[in-house]
C-alpha cells in the first residue's frame, strides 16, 4: 500500500525546494543574500556534478579532469570578449567547439583505456591546459588573470537565476537521458563493455556522445562562471579541486542516479558552514572537519545517499 510513498515524498521535497529557491530573492536583505550566495555555490556544483554524473555515473567514464571543460568555457568567454571583442554568444560557441574537440579526444582515449588509466589521462589533460593557461601569457595574461569589465559581467542575482535555470535543465536532461535509449546504452557500457560490444553496440560512439553532452554542459557552466566572477585565472578554473568536487558531490549523492548530485550537495553546505564557523580561528580545523565528514560518509554510505533512501522506502512498503 505504501509502495509508492517514496515517490510523492520525493516530489514534494523537490517542489518545495524549487518553491523556496524561487521565492527567496523576493525578500531582499543581507541575510537572504548570504543564503542566496550559499545556494548559488551549491547550484554551481550541483550543476557541474550532474554534468559529471552523465559521463561518470551513467557511462562509468571516471574522469578526474572535468575542470578542463570548465576552464575552456570560462577562458573562451573571457578571452573572447576581453581580448578580441567578440559577442558573448560567439564566445560560448567557441568554448563549446573547443570542449567538443577535447571531449572527442577523451572519448577516443576511453576506447583504449579504462578505470584508473582513463582517470589519469583526464587528469593529465587538465594539467596540460592548466599550464598552457598560465604560460601562454599573450593570450590569457597568465596568472594575473583575464579581467572582465563591468559590461561583460553579470550581477549576483542574475547569476543566481542563470544557475537555477541551468540546474533545472541539467536535471531534466539527466532524467530524459536516464530513461532513453542513450541512457540504457550507457549503463550497459558501464556494467559490461565487452558484452555490449559483443551484442553489436558501438560503445566508442556512445561514450563520445555522452562525453560531448557532459562537456558541453560543463563548458557552458564555465562561461557563466567567468561572467559572474569577473576575472578568470588558471587556478580558478583548471583546478583539480573543482574536478574532485564534481565527483565527490556525485558519489556522496549516488552515482548514476538522477537526484544523486542534489543529495550530495549537503556536503558543500557542510563545507561552507564549517569554514564559516571555525575557519578564521583555527586554520586547519575546517579541512580536518571536511575530511572527517567525507570519510564518515564513505564508511556509512559507500554507494551514496540515494542508495540508502531507496531500500528504506522498500522496507517501509513491506
Amino acid at each position, binding site marked *: 500500500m505504501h509502495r509508492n510513498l517514496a515517490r510523492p515524498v520525493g516530489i514534494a521535497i523537490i517542489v518545495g525546494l524549487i518553491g523556496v529557491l524561487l521565492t527567496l530573492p523576493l525578500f531582499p536583505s543581507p541575510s537572504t543574500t548570504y543564503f542566496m550566495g550559499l545556494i548559488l555555490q551549491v547550484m554551481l556544483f550541483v550543476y557541474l556534478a550532474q554534468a559529471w554524473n552523465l559521463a561518470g555515473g551513467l557511462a562509468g567514464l571516471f574522469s578526474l579532469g572535468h575542470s578542463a571543460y570548465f576552464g575552456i568555457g570560462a577562458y573562451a568567454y573571457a578571452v573572447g570578449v576581453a581580448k578580441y571583442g567578440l559577442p558573448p554568444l560567439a564566445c560560448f560557441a567557441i568554448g563549446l567547439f573547443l570542449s567538443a574537440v577535447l571531449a572527442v579526444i577523451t572519448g577516443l582515449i576511453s576506447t583504449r583505456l579504462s578505470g*584508473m588509466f582513463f582517470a589519469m589521462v583526464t587528469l593529465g589533460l587538465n594539467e596540460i591546459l592548466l599550464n598552457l593557461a598560465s604560460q601562454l601569457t599573450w593570450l590569457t595574461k597568465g596568472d594575473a588573470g583575464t579581467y572582465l569589465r563591468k559590461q561583460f559581467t553579470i550581477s549576483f542575482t542574475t547569476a543566481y537565476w542563470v544557475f537555477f535555470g541551468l540546474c533545472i535543465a541539467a536535471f531534466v536532461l539527466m532524467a530524459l537521458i536516464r530513461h532513453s535509449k542513450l541512457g540504457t546504452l550507457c549503463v550497459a557500457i558501464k556494467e559490461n563493455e565487452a558484452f555490449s560490444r559483443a551484442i553489436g553496440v558501438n560503445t566508442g560512439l556512445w561514450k563520445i556522445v555522452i562525453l560531448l553532452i557532459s562537456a558541453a554542459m560543463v563548458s557552458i557552466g564555465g562561461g557563466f562562471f567567468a561572467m559572474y566572477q569577473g576575472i578568470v585565472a588558471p587556478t580558478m578554473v583548471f583546478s583539480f579541486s573543482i574536478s574532485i568536487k564534481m565527483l565527490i558531490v556525485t558519489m556522496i549523492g549516488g552515482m548514476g542516479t538522477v537526484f544523486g548530485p542534489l543529495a550530495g550537495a549537503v556536503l558543500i553546505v557542510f563545507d561552507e558552514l564549517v569554514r564559516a564557523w571555525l575557519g578564521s580561528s583555527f*586554520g586547519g580545523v575546517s579541512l580536518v572537519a571536511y575530511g572527517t565528514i567525507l570519510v564518515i560518509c*564513505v564508511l556509512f554510505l559507500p554507494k551514496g545517499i540515494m542508495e540508502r533512501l531507496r531500500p528504506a522506502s522498500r522496507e517501509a512498503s513491506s
Partner: protein
Amino acid sequence: MTPQIIITLLLNGLFTGAIYGLFASGLTFQLGSLSIANFGYGSWLILAMYTTFFALKIWNVPLAFVVLVLPVIYFAAGYVIRNRLLVGGSLNVQILSTIGIAMIVDGLIILFYSPAPRTLGIIEPLIEIAPGIRIGAIRLTVFILAAVLLVLFQLFLQRSHLGKVIRAVVLEKETAMLMGINSERIIGIAFGISFVLIAISGIMLIHLFPVTTSAGSSYQLMSFLIATIAGLGNMRGAFYAGLAIGVLNAFLLYFAASFVTVVIFSLFVVVLILRSGRTAGMRHI
C-alpha cells in the same frame, strides 16, 4: 653547448629522477599490487617532510632517531588506514576516503606545523667527478640509497617469507586464503610497508627541497604520472621511469623551461595510449 654541459644535465637529471623514482615507487606498489588508489599520497609525503624538519630543527632529535621511529609510525598508520577504512572498497570508495584522509592530514599540518614553508637549508657540497663536471653529494647519496632501498625491497618480496606471502596474496587472494593465509592482514601489512617507503622518501626529500603546504599535490601528480608510465605495480619500472623523466626534465629546463610540464604530460598521455593494450592487470613485483 659543450659536452660538459650535456653530461652535467644528464647526471643531474638522473639524480633528480632517482628521487622521483623513489617517491613514486611507494605509490606504484599501492596502485598495482594492492589496487589502492591513494589520493592522499602527497599529503602523507609532505607530513613526513614537515615532521622531519620539526624533529631536526625544533625538537632537536637526532636524525637516526627520526629514521628509526618515523617509518614505524607510518607503518602503523598505513596498516590502520587499510584495515579500518579501505577494506573491500571499490575504486570510488578508495578515492573518496583517501581524499578525506588527505584533507585531515593537510589540516593537521596547518594546525600543528603552521602553513609556513620550511627548509633544512642545506647547501649541497659538490664532488668533481671529471674536469668541469660537478655533481651534488646529497643527490648522489640519495641516488645510491634509493637504488639500494628498492633492490632490498625487491629482495624482500622475492626471498623473505613475508614477501612471498604478500606476493601470493596479490596474485591470488582467494587461493592464498584457502592456504590458511589471513589475506586482509597481509594486505594491511603490505600497505603499511608502502607507507614506510613514503616516510623514507619524505626524510630524504626534506634534505634537498623546501616543503610547503601545496607541495603535496605536485608530488602526488608526479607519482601518479611515473606510476602509470611504468605500469602499475612495476617498481623497477617506476625507478627507471623516474630516471627518464628526470633526464627529460633537465634538458627541457635548459631549452624550454616554460613548457616542461606541458611536454611531460603530453608525453605521458601519448605513452599511456600507445601501450594501453599492455597496461591492464599488470602486476610484477
